[in-house]
């Protein structure tokens, strides 16, 4: 065999060392992440208070909300054209305007918002109508066992069991952080399911339908848990 001799095999394998060094740094990062996370959040909280540029919002795990939508564009709705329909297995199907919802008895829930993607917004106040009150208003028939939520973005959907839906910390929310919910945050009306991950809190809520069994929602058909209970360390805000 007249193979070409391997060029320069005598030097130090620095390329390999660079690669292994990066792998080591990655492993160390994973090991240290739980500790880094807390310090990082504290640093960002401090930094974002003095940051007028908003650049801290680009950093990993910035405090605050991130915008998620599963469609290309979402229509804007306000007092003039918003309607929430409540139907399915109920005695009295309802359609609520925004003003009608605002006139109903309101409940305030303060709880951590936790996304499965690792960001969290601590002690966020939501205000709105208890889902349980709306269900009582329409009268759930005995066959009703679950709720399906649909949204005016035309694609998103969510689900809860009837038992979950009747919890006192599940709201049809009208305000967030004491301000009307903006379009980017799912306004004018969104669901807020405080004890679960935030994907269960459907944005741009437009339809509530009582069903005889749970119909998996948008992300749930794509592998997410149907019961989105906060687990482990994420439940730390439960005292609220």
């Amino acid at each position, binding site marked *: *065999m007249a193979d070409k001799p391997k060029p320069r095999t005598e030097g130090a394998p620095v390329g390999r060392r660079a690669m292994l060094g990066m792998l080591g740094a990655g492993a160390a990062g*994973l090991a240290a992440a739980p500790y880094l996370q807390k310090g990082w959040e504290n640093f960002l909280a401090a930094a974002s208070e003095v940051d007028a540029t908003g650049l801290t919002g680009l950093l990993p795990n910035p405090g605050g909300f991130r915008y998620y939508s599963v469609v290309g564009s979402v229509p804007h709705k306000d007092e003039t054209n918003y309607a929430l329909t409540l139907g399915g297995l109920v005695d009295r199907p309802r359609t609520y305007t925004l003003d009608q919802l605002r006139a109903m008895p309101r409940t305030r829930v303060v709880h951590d918002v936790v996304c499965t993607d690792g960001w969290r917004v601590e002690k966020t106040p939501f205000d709105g109508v208890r889902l349980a009150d709306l269900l009582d208003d329409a009268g759930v028939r005995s066959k009703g066992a679950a709720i399906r939520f649909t949204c005016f973005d035309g694609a998103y959907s969510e689900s809860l069991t009837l038992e979950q839906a009747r919890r006192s910390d599940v709201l049809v929310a009208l305000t967030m952080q004491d301000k009307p919910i903006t379009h980017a945050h799912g306004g004018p009306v969104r669901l807020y399911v405080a004890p679960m991950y935030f994907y269960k809190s459907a944005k741009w809520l437009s339809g509530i339908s009582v069903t005889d069994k749970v119909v998996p929602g948008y992300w749930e058909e794509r592998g997410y848990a149907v019961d989105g209970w906060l687990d482990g360390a994420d439940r730390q805000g439960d005292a609220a």
Partner: protein
Amino acid sequence: MRSTAGSTGPTGRVTRPEREGRIRRFSTAERMVHRVTGYLMLLCLVTAACLYLGPLAQLVGRRHLMVTVHEWSGITLPVPFLLGLLSPAFRADLRRLNRFAVYDRQWLRAVRRRRTSPEARPAGKFNAGQKLYAGWIAGAVLVMMFTGLLMWFMGLLPFISRTSAILVHDILAWAITFVVLGHLRKAFEDPEARLGMRTGHVSLSWAQRHHSRWLREEREGDAAADAVDRRMT
């Protein structure tokens, strides 16, 4: 200057001067590996931006589509590399990228002292910066794949929380973004280097100026190979 892309394949030693003073730097297989890897990396970074940056996310939406494209462009990122391993020229260049010669340390010293003249920065086929970049980006892509898979398949390794995987994935994503931008900037500053990656050939004068030890080493290698040939016959 006319392109030599698609010219006759190298039959003799790869770096023997070919027509018009141009010499072969990369084989077709190597350029395909680079091109496909580049496109996949671009796809990864663009979809990451659409998922991660608020204004872009609001503009683009379509989260499930972006997630799917991001996951698959990420998971297939090493495929061109693995296929490239079938090519002897690619394997030979990996060996060159891996090994540091004495003059590579001189190159790094020149960078630290901000000496930019090619004479102060001796290099073989690849300079020390290219060697470090290649090794680092290989490790970084593997870490991104690992943390990405942890996010994709929740509960794959229960002792690593999804939040931890996301933190490492996010921080390293920014590092990769800036390093790849640096890589692109270097390429834009050097048209002949880009031509080499596009056509496979570079001018002899460019090679002598920016990779002075490359041709010398090849000649020494050829001489050694010839000696082996003679012994074999």
